[in-house]
């Protein structure tokens, strides 16, 4: 971080292309551009092949002797399992519409971060190994041999992709780099090319229920701290329950929310809302992670980690599940969960006990987004909200990649936001909604050693934020993703200093007016409310 050039300098991206063809350019592993490899004991715990100590900066990556066969066989297997892969390998015309859509390309100028070239890294091997004509024509037809440099390049660029799917929106054939990256990572995992910041959280999720490795008693402790803090701010003692059999609702959120700022304030918002509604909801330490780190590895681990949600809902006998504010979690819940671990025939179609609204859009999965639930409450006038508790905030909204392009979740969160803050303004139209830009930390890349590249990738989001900061005085960026809440504060500090990052339910929690409550002087961050600053000091 300390070595980072200032933003004005970083913006000066060189978009010119090298003189030599891309196949002749070897990847360079400079600090700040790659993530550290998976630790051997973590690989062993997960049962992944080739656990060893190795470093991308060294020449010898200690690949298993039969790695070529493993990749070939794996590729063949995936081509037989995924139509997406097969079609995406065959029908790209290299029109380049995707080229300047990737935040990592915009921020780095590295041509291999153009989604089309990222895919060509895989496609060149597909042609060289699985198509007759290209095998004969070789490089001319864009085919190449499977050499160590090829998989080194894979490691570089498939761990420089956050699977945000922005490129996929513009592709005339809908070629989805998230799918290609997902499957490339699956292949790499078969020969031991993986990163620790994905594997260790995945291992933690498996054993402790959440990616941080928080054990059940510690989880309870952290919850107690937040309950105390809520009491300090509101004078109310909320009483969340754990593992309560027969509760109506199981609530699952990313565990990042209980662990660090600013997620904890969102967590407090959840607790306040449930208390306000006297909702029959319970928490689980066993299923205490919404985010799915398996989805950054392969389909097996994605399924295995996700399976806890239904398993716990079944064990506790709840009627349905509500999910908290999270990005990847919702990509998996919306597009994969029912397929992998359904049918959820032991649950009921979610029906809000407060408004009676039946969530037809979740009638099979039986899992709804908390923001849907809250938007419905507000629409039906069930929440008394005081925007002035969020006075001084000029908010903008960051659409998370996964809820945007894997769901289409745009108007519900904006509706909630508009009802809890006095001033809200969107960022420029080509950086929001389905065209939103990634925070740079998705798909397992929110680790410390990757900070430089992540901040480069954060250029488009950061610049859009700076624009509304300067033009409209935006000082708060709200979002519904735990990785955003972890990544965006650093991004804002760098690209648009002075803008703070909040989850949506933090703002809801601030604005909620309880019946007969004592007057609040602080927000959930224990900052004095505007107009009340310094009142204590005067006493």
């Amino acid at each position, binding site marked *: 971080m300390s070595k980072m050039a200032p933003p004005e300098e970083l913006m000066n991206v060189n978009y010119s292309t*090298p003189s030599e063809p*891309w196949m002749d350019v070897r990847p360079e592993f400079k600090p700040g551009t790659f993530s550290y490899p998976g630790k051997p004991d973590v690989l062993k715990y997960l049962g992944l092949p080739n656990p060893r100590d190795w470093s991308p900066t060294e020449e010898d990556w200690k690949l298993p002797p039969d790695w070529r066969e493993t990749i070939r066989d794996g590729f063949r297997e995936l*081509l037989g*399992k*995924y*139509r997406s892969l*097969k*079609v995406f390998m*065959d*029908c*790209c015309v*290299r*029109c*380049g*519409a995707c*080229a*300047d859509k990737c935040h990592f390309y*915009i921020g780095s100028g590295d*041509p291999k971060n*153009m989604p089309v070239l990222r895919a060509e890294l895989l496609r060149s091997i597909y042609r060289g190994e699985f198509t007759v004509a290209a095998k004969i*024509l070789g490089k*001319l037809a864009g085919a190449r041999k499977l050499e160590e440099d090829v998989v080194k390049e894979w490691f570089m660029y498939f761990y420089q992709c956050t699977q945000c*799917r922005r490129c*996929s929106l513009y592709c*005339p054939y*809908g*070629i*989805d780099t998230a799918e290609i990256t997902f499957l490339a990572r699956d292949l790499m995992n078969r020969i031991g090319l993986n990163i620790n910041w994905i594997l260790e959280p995945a291992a933690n999720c498996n*054993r402790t229920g959440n990616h941080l490795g928080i*054990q*059940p008693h510690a989880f309870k402790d952290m919850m107690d701290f937040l309950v105390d803090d809520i009491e300090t701010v509101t004078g109310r003692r909320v009483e969340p329950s*754990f*593992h*309560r*059999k027969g509760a109506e609702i199981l609530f699952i959120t990313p565990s990042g929310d209980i662990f660090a700022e600013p997620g904890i304030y969102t967590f407090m918002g959840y607790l306040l809302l449930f208390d306000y509604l006297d909702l029959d909801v319970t928490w689980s*330490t*066993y299923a205490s992670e919404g985010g799915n780190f398996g989805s950054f590895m392969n389909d*097996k681990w994605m399924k295995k980690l996700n*399976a806890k949600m239904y398993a716990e809902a079944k064990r506790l006998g709840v009627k349905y599940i509500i999910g908290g504010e999270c990005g990847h979690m919702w990509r998996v819940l919306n*597009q994969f969960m*029912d*397929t*992998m671990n*359904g049918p959820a025939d032991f649950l009921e179609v979610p029906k809000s006990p407060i408004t009676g609204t039946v969530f037809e*859009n979740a009638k*099979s999965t039986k*899992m709804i987004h908390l923001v*849907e639930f809250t*938007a*419905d409450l507000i629409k039906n006038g069930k929440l008394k909200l005081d925007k002035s508790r969020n006075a001084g905030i000029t908010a903008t909204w960051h659409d998370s990649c996964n809820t*945007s392009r894997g*769901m*289409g*979740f*745009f108007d*519900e969160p904006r509706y909630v936001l508009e009802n809890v803050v006095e001033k809200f303004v969107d960022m420029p139209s*080509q950086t929001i909604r*389905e*065209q939103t830009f990634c925070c740079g930390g998705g798909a397992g890349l929110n680790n410390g050693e990757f900070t430089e590249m992540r901040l480069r990738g954060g250029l488009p989001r950061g*610049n859009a934020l700076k624009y509304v900061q300067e033009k409209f005085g935006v000082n708060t960026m709200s979002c519904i993703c735990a990785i955003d809440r972890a990544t965006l504060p650093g991004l804002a500090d760098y690209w648009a200093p002075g803008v703070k990052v909040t989850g949506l339910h933090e703002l809801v929690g601030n604005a909620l007016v309880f019946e007969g409550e004592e007057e609040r002087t602080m927000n959930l961050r224990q900052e004095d409310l505007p107009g009340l600053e310094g009142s204590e000091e005067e006493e």
Partner: protein
Amino acid sequence: MAGLVTALLAVVALAAVAALGAGAGMAQVFGIYIPYVAVAIFVTGFIKKVLGWASTPVPFAIPTTGGQQYSLPWVKQAKFDNPSTPGQTFIRMALEVLCFRSLFRNTKVDNRPGEGTVGYGSDKSLWLFALIFHYCFLIVFIRHFRFFLEPVPFLVTGVEFVDSILQISVPTLYLTDVFFVVGVTFLLARRLFDSKVAYISLASDFFPLFLILAIALSGIYMRYFAKVDVIAIKQLAIGLVSFKPVIPPNVDWSFYMHFFLVCVLWAYFPFSKLMHLGGVFLSPTRNLPNNTRMVRHINPWNDPSIKPHSYADYEDDFREKMIEAGLPVDKEA
């Protein structure tokens, strides 16, 4: 650039082979044998490829959603960018295939470090020229049916009438001939002069463009300059489709060149990126509705043996700590 040169040389060589070969008494080869072989390769290759895709499972429904989802009744859904029913998905696909909806969104990054801004201006040039190119290709293709069909169907004469509405020159100028060449030229120029596109371009990107351009130019030469004997060519064409092939006299060498290049295109098609014609219909990010929380999508290879780390194991691992913290447990220690 190696790709560009190779592709250009390949097309020039192919054209020369046909022009010289037909002149050297090999009219039968270029007029009869090669066309049959080429069409056979096209048909079997195309079907094989599409069946190969279609027989591969779609394990997950992964539409790329491009607008507001179906949600609460008071939230307005973007039905055709984020469809939730098969009917809406059909319209999304129609917009994609017929109007190039995704390309219509195209933007161009405009990074101005001096001003401290990055913009994303609308860039519809690729959309426009791609649309011109593909529709001209379609119309030219339909027009050619007059050579193979007797009587000429109304659709074909209708298309011809509109296409030559300006009534310029003799024979009358087809508008699509002009726009077709303009479209191909634009696509080619992009590949040459847009450094990003040039960098990703392979010989297999230049080859079809040169080939198609050569087909267009040879066709234009035949019609407007050589003014070839159309009756003779129609005789040859009808002979081919009725499986009673004949080689009439008076067929100009330029016809064999044109026809051979078309045959090369047919034969090349199934093995190339031109298969996007079929692939666009089968892309799982476009042809599935975003209804996966309402309707369960089935994965044929879903593995029921993959189970979560069970609660019982979890509790065994942490039981004492849980009890101490006051968390409920299933089995007391």
